[in-house]
């Protein structure tokens, strides 16, 4: 309870500063409010709320079992939420599910495709499901296959394709009806590094023209393509914002490192702690770590110069999203203390 609450409060502050909240004219494409989903006694998604605006590319990040897939399935209209509601393009995912499904391209992690059909037959089927006319199918199918780079494989049996190619065909299938919103569950899982780069590039391109929601448990994937990240942990929203916002607001780990040669001069700790913007100072390994939100190297340098301390190192260690993610995932955060119920 403690951690999410603290983090979220911190985030609320951050979001009010975020550029996203300044562009209020953009319509919200995806709204989730207080979504919860239980599987028997297991709470997979717990009171999850977020909003995604048109044209945003958002990464869903979280360790395995954090509730990413469940949330995406709720949005895609496959699973109903136990409580709470969600809407896509103004249609409720539960009561107006068919309309929602017309607006989304959803690719599940397993990349479900009919193995016994050829690639173009699979797309033909998808086109019919979405009510595309014969002419539209004839135009769109080569177009999307070209887009994902498998046009030359269109007569191949889906079952004979490699994992990477299957993933591309799956993406083509999701793209075929030209959906407003793309929901991709772990689109890079099981791919080799080269294929990952390819898919990542593709998602980046797609993000330029439509709203994309991508999930992954691999941080660099998300960092590379998604300007905004939603971090889930144990079904709850752990963090939500752009990379920089997250690092800034949750960056307890940012600090200025000052290392001196020789013994630590008496009273130096107090002098450093008195600096503006320093949250706290700890002495370790013959130096100091000054926790602060911004780069205070200049101020620290001035103190060092004034006092004449012999310096070995003065550096600014910024928290990375990776550290942040690990903290959240491993619940290392010091704010994480189970509040008594």
């Amino acid at each position: 309870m403690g951690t999410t609450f603290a983090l979220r409060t911190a985030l609320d502050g951050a979001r009010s500063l975020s550029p996203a909240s300044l562009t209020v004219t953009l319509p919200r494409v995806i709204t989730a409010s207080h979504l919860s989903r239980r599987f028997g006694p297991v709470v997979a998604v717990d009171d999850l709320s977020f909003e995604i605006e048109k044209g945003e590319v958002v990464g869903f990040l979280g360790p395995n079992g954090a509730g990413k897939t469940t949330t995406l399935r709720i949005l895609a209209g496959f699973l109903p939420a136990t409580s709470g509601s969600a809407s896509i393009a103004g249609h409720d995912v539960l009561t107006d599910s068919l309309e929602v499904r017309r607006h989304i391209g959803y690719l599940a992690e397993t990349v479900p495709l009919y193995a016994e059909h050829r690639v173009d037959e699979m797309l033909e089927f998808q086109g019919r499901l979405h009510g595309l006319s014969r002419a539209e199918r004839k135009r769109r199918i080569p177009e999307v296959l070209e887009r994902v780079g498998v046009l030359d494989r269109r007569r191949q049996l889906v079952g004979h394709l490699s994992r990477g190619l299957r993933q591309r065909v799956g993406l083509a299938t999701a793209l075929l009806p030209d959906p407003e919103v793309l929901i991709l569950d772990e689109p890079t899982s099981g791919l080799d590094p080269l294929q990952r780069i390819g898919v990542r590039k593709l998602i980046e391109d797609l993000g330029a023209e439509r709203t994309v929601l991508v999930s992954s448990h691999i941080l660099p994937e998300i960092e590379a393509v998604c300007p905004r990240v939603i971090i889930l942990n144990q079904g709850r929203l752990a963090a939500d914002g752009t990379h920089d916002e997250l690092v800034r607001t949750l960056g307890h780990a940012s600090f200025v490192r000052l290392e001196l040669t020789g013994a630590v001069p008496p009273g130096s700790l107090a002098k450093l702690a008195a600096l503006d913007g320093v949250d706290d100072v700890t002495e370790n390994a013959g130096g100091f770590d000054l926790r602060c939100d911004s780069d205070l190297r200049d101020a620290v340098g001035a103190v060092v110069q004034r006092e004449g301390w012999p310096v070995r190192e003065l550096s600014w260690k910024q928290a990375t999203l990776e550290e942040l993610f690990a903290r959240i995932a491993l619940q290392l955060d010091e704010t994480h203390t189970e509040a008594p119920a």
Partner: protein
Amino acid sequence: MKGALTIYRRELAGLFVAPLAWILLTIALTLSGWLFVTMLKETGGDIVAATRFVGGQGITYWAVMIFLPPLLTMRMISEESKNGLLEFLLTSPVSDTAVVVGKFLAALSFMGLFWSSNLIYAGALTGLGSPPDWPPVLGGYLGALLVSGLFCSIGLFASSVTSTPILAAFGSMVGSLLILLLPNLVGLVDWPWLTEEIAAVDVMSHFHRSFLVGVLDTKVVVFFLAGTLLFLFLASRAVEAKRWR
């Protein structure tokens, strides 16, 4: 309903690109052709008896009826629910019912194709100058479609409540067999009221007394249609229930 048509086309294509359909069709047609010829020889060329035999009188007819629909339908929902294709279908803009109906129609079409062999035998005999009694042949075909429909819907329902195709096939075979043998089973107990009620769902004698003599009894037709609709309804509920699990 356009969605159901799309699913239907895919399922039918799916059946025929996989070897199972061809294997079943080959075995069953060979068996039925052989039986028909044997019957013709045995009866000394009694065309009516032979067409009746392969069209519903013989026990082989019912054996095929019990085995074929479960084998056709066993994978349709159970396997797709396991490999994620059901998730794909259920996140497409088609209703759950359309998915079930499309699959059902595909299985039924296959059965219709299979039973059309009896029409071909009758047609061949007509061509050879000794036409059979057509009303029972046509009635028998319609009856075969209705019974197949009932058993295919049972098969689909079984496929929707288990995730193992073999289990689904087994379950629907047992279910179909029970329905066929119900009148014999109640004969084992001495409760006249029960026997009377059960007589109303006596599939085989309905079939023999109505379709096989070329008479269309509305009551019997409605009985089969109602049973089929019931199991299709149950199957689509079961598919919907998968979303909640």
